[in-house]
């Protein structure tokens, strides 16, 4: 019975420690901004918060945020719809994997940002090139994690399924997909995280809207407080996205019996 309050303390500790660390970080930031004494070189935390409010009030923040999120969502969804089945096929057929792997390994390390000139050439200005960039960004991580998910299925699980006569669509629906699901979801989470990093860079280089553009635009008007405000928002939204996908992932793992309770 005595370990009940202990466990409670532990949970409290898990919540409080991160807040203390964050507070420490913000104090150092504040201290540095006092030292530098220039809102141009290093805006203080309070001016960043003020800038966030200003951007919220005049509506620009919400506009740009929704633009970026929509691009990420569409590019990521399109990539997943294509990359998951292709990854499953490559994982299942060793021959196909051997044939495609070199090509994938050449395309994969090309930074999605390097595709921007072509993206603008092909799709013009607006959301389309950004969606294309996110598609490229998400495609390979999802493809590779889906393929390796198939290859990592326990040999005995496949053997047992074959033994009971599972073939074709039954094999895919009742064995391969559920066996791969948890690892595919991990791949989705990772690629969504990368997509959120890349969208900002892409919008800074070649777009006229979105959070990346908002930051670039603020710099052009020497509103460095707004630059920092944009950075803070990107970080917080990134955290939110990760938490969201994490909780979906945990739900799936529990439902599919890959982790207990």
């Amino acid at each position, binding site marked *: 019975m005595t370990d009940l309050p202990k466990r409670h303390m532990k949970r409290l500790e898990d919540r409080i420690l991160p807040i203390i660390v964050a507070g420490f970080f913000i104090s150092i930031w504040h201290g540095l901004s006092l030292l530098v004494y220039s809102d141009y070189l290093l805006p203080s935390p309070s001016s960043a918060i003020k800038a966030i409010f200003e951007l919220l009030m005049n509506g620009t923040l919400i506009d740009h945020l929704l633009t970026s999120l929509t691009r990420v969502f569409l590019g990521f969804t399109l990539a997943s719809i294509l990359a998951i089945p292709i990854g499953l096929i490559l994982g299942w057929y060793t021959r196909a994997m051997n044939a495609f792997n070199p090509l994938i390994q050449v395309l994969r390390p090309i930074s999605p940002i390097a595709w921007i000139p072509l993206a603008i050439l092909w799709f013009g200005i607006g959301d389309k090139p950004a969606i294309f960039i996110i598609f490229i960004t998400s495609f390979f991580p999802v493809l590779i994690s889906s393929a390796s998910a198939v290859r990592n299925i*326990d040999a*005995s*699980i496949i*053997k*047992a*399924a*074959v*033994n*009971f*006569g*599972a073939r074709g669509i*039954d094999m895919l629906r*009742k*064995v391969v997909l*559920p*066996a791969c*699901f948890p690892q595919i979801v991990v791949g989705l989470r990772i690629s969504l995280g990368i997509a959120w990093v890349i969208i900002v860079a892409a919008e800074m280089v070649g777009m006229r809207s979105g959070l990346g553009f908002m930051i670039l635009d603020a710099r052009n008007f020497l509103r460095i407080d707004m630059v920092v405000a944009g950075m803070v928002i990107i970080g917080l939204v990134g955290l939110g996205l990760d938490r969201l996908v994490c909780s979906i992932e945990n739900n799936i793992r529990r439902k*599919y*019996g*890959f*982790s*207990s309770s």
Partner: protein
Amino acid sequence: MGSAVHDNIKIAIRDVTKLYSNNSHSLIALDAINLEIMDGEFFCLLGPSGCGKSTLLNIMAGFEKPTDGKVLIEGGEIAAPNPRYVTVFQDYGIFPWRTVQENVEFGLEIKGIEVNERKKIAEVFIKMVGLVGFEMRHPIELSGGMKQRVSLARALAVNPEIIFMDEPFGAVDALTRMKLQEELVKIWREENKTIVFVTHDIDEAIYLGDRIAVMSSMPGRIKSLLDVPMNRPRLRTENDFLRIKEKIYLEFFEYADKK
């Protein structure tokens, strides 16, 4: 002798040879094996790791093809795995995303048996392996011994003629293993299946088998074929048991001395 072994041959292994080769050299995993396993028999393949006993089992079950020779089940050559002959694996091969109940129903589902019917069948075998009350659990919540019970129930549910068991109790603790052996014998006697059981545990082979094929490695061969003329349930401490055990020990160590 202790059980009703029929006279007709269920599995005939004819000159089965298996070579594994890579670029530099080849390994003879099985060297011209000949063996006959009777209908309803509990047959044990006993040998050290690397003697090819699991390879032989995999060939009988249709998972691997022999390099030479063939396996006949009831006179027909085995070419692929078939639900009439079900394998129970050491690492269970059960589906982590399915509950105990759903795991046991898997083979019936693939066969296209209707929901209520397969539920009824699954219940029978879940009861037989002692998992009543765990139907809705996922494998992650079960111990190793319980997972193997799920695997056995899933195999029994499709009413196979032969159950191939590949060191099924290798990963469970000694006491649980003895309990599982005892229950397996009971189930085998009730269900009247042919069981081919691979193990490296001498006691396990003597406790379970009507006959034991002792195998040697490099190359994999059948060194001797032993009858276990003991009544069931067997006692691990009775004289007959110990005498057979000594005989098998001698098989291994005499051989080693002569080398």
